[in-house]
């Protein structure tokens, strides 16, 4: 190979490598959700009584560079059949059609549309929440904090259960069962770029 050819090829190679690196920078690898340390829980109110449930099965695809949050995105999927309560009776009740209708709508999803920085370690994640075939826009405030080798994204938000037709017929009465449902989440993520 002549020195002239090298003279052309080397810069070309470097340019390509640089472009490749830029693509990699613009789209960091998705973080891995760690089941241990992750939790999605929700609290309803029945005649003033707070009743808590948790989802046992969920997955998340999180691509986020905390220094460039606008380029990130979050996609969360929850198995609606995995809701668990303190009592076996509620475990059996909630997958039924008038509640989450787990057979017809096995997944509830959240797909982000825009992530914005909102202070140190804080982000506002706007997106669409879909439960039981109904979709609503939502802005979720998220706090990101290191925890051991992982980073934990946590926060809470309130949704209206009737927006998603959860609790139909006689259960649509919000004086018996409040419309507001508070959702709390904690996602332990490995492989997220540092804050």
């Amino acid at each position: 190979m002549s020195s002239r050819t090298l003279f052309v090829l080397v810069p070309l190679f470097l340019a390509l490598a640089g472009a490749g690196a830029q693509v990699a920078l613009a789209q960091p690898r998705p973080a891995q959700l760690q089941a241990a340390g992750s939790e999605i829980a929700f609290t309803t109110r029945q005649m003033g009584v707070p009743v808590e449930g948790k989802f046992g099965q969920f997955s998340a695809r999180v691509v986020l560079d905390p220094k460039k949050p606008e380029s990130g995105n979050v996609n969360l999927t929850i198995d609606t059949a995995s809701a668990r309560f303190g009592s076996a009776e509620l475990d059996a009740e909630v997958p039924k059609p008038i509640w989450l209708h787990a057979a017809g709508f096995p997944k509830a999803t959240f797909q982000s549309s825009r992530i914005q920085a909102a202070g140190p370690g804080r982000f506002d994640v706007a997106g669409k929440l879909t439960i039981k075939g109904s979709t609503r826009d939502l802005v979720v405030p998220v706090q990101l904090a290191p925890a051991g080798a992982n980073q934990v994204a946590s926060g809470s938000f309130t949704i209206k259960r009737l927006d998603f037709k959860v609790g139909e017929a006689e259960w649509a009465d919000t004086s018996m069962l409040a419309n507001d449902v508070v959702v709390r989440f904690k996602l332990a993520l490995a492989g997220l770029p540092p804050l």
Partner: protein
Amino acid sequence: MALHWLLALMILGSLGVGLCMTGLPFSPARLKLYNWHKWAGVTILVLSTLRLLWRLTHRPPADVPMSARQQRAAHAAHAALYGLFFAVPLAGWAYSSAAGFPVVLFGVLPLPDFVGPDRALSESLKPLHQWLAYALAAVIAVHIVAALKHHFVDRDGLLLRMMPARRHGGAPVQPIRS
């Protein structure tokens, strides 16, 4: 004595609601009954505490004449009643907490959970609450039968001591003539 009758009403009501509600399908009606039952249970607990304090600080009326054996049985039944006045609601409260339903008195006053949500514990507290309640119902039945026997068989006028107008053993109230 007013506490005796108020508690009698509340306890019999709670036993009845308790029997009915568990057979209902999951519904708002069932939820209402469960909550009323819990509020009644907590109220019974509070009133029973007042009653026990009253009983401990006041001398109860002397027993009507009866055999020593009957006397022992009567006192044992009363002790069992007092014990169950506390045991039944406390077991129910713990069962509710363990099942993940904290008790919120009258829908506004959240009461502390003295046990946390625990599936296994709730499954053993449920029959405990149930059988203590059956025991309470059985002792109440004995108590009622014994009281009726005193009044109608022994003709010792026992029931009159528990009636408002005869509290002090006085004459019946004279009708007022105009």
